[in-house]
């Protein structure tokens, strides 16, 4: 009797194993979804990279905020930058705010990068990394989309393109309009 139970258990375990392994092919080990999406965006106040005082997330409440974590040592950041610049120009005069958060580097390096890459939106320094940790950042580049209600509506890990940016922003603007 017991031996039979064991036999069945072995077959079940092995079947489960094979099914799991087969299912696992559909999974991308680099796709990490956990984090702060659909939760209120953690508040922060950080010093601007150019030294002209501080910027706070609270300053932009009621607006669509695109928060981009970047660093000069991060190659994908350089790769995605033209898309960010184009989207910034496109929404410049609307209720969309772009905010760059410099990740794990010195202010001089960050500022040099911002000037070199033609970034004219606000960039702030996250000196001790606390803001990145509170957003659950893995590494730059990462982009968060914060709605007018202050909730993080979406997150993109890795270099982002223009289409993804525009789609996410338009969705949030639509939300803002219907409110």
């Amino acid at each position: 009797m017991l031996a039979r139970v064991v036999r069945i258990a072995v077959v079940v375990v092995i079947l489960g194993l094979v099914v799991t392994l087969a299912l696992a092919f559909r999974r991308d080990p680099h796709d990490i979804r956990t984090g702060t999406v659909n939760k209120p965006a953690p508040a922060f106040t950080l010093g601007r990279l150019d030294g002209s005082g501080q910027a706070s997330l609270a300053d932009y409440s009621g607006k669509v905020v695109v928060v981009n974590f970047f660093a000069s040592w991060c190659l994908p950041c350089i790769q995605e930058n033209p898309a960010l610049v184009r989207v910034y120009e496109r929404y410049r005069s609307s209720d969309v705010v772009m905010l760059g958060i410099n990740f794990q580097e010195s202010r001089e390096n960050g500022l040099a990068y911002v000037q070199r890459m033609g970034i004219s939106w606000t960039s702030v320094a996250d000196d001790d990394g606390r803001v990145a940790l509170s957003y659950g950042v893995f590494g730059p580049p990462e982009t968060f989309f914060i709605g007018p209600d202050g909730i993080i509506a979406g997150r993109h890990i890795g270099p982002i393109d223009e289409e993804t940016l525009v789609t996410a922003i338009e969705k949030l603007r639509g939300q803002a309009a219907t409110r």
Partner: protein
Amino acid sequence: MNRRVLIAIAVLALAGALAFAARPHETTADERVDQITTELRCPVCQGLSVKDSTSETARQMRDLVAQRVREAKTNAEIEAEFRAAYGDWIFLSPPLASWTGLVWLVPVAALAAGLALVTGRLRSGGVPQPSAPTTTEVAALRERVAREEAAEG
């Protein structure tokens, strides 16, 4: 000295040493930081803990934990802060409370089932009487030795 007295003394000494090792003692702030960061997964590494990793992110996380410990936050509060940002993913051993606790249950259940299975097959009672090998047993053994020698030669 009598064997039994010797064994009794040794067992007492052993129990004393283990009791000393297991005694509850105050954890220092550094020990608490180590305990918490051992459980946290470094987000930029391959399965390393925040305590072990040399990455900048892990260093910042250690600093954050150390600050929270200085602020007299409880372990649960500090863990909740990281869970809010990274989800359960950030913990290297899954929480017992939810259904993920199954991962703790299965090894224990398997161990218990295995021990029950083996115990059920053991002979109970005293030491079996030494019996002379039967002729068939001797023949089987001889055959085995001959075979082994052939295989090994």
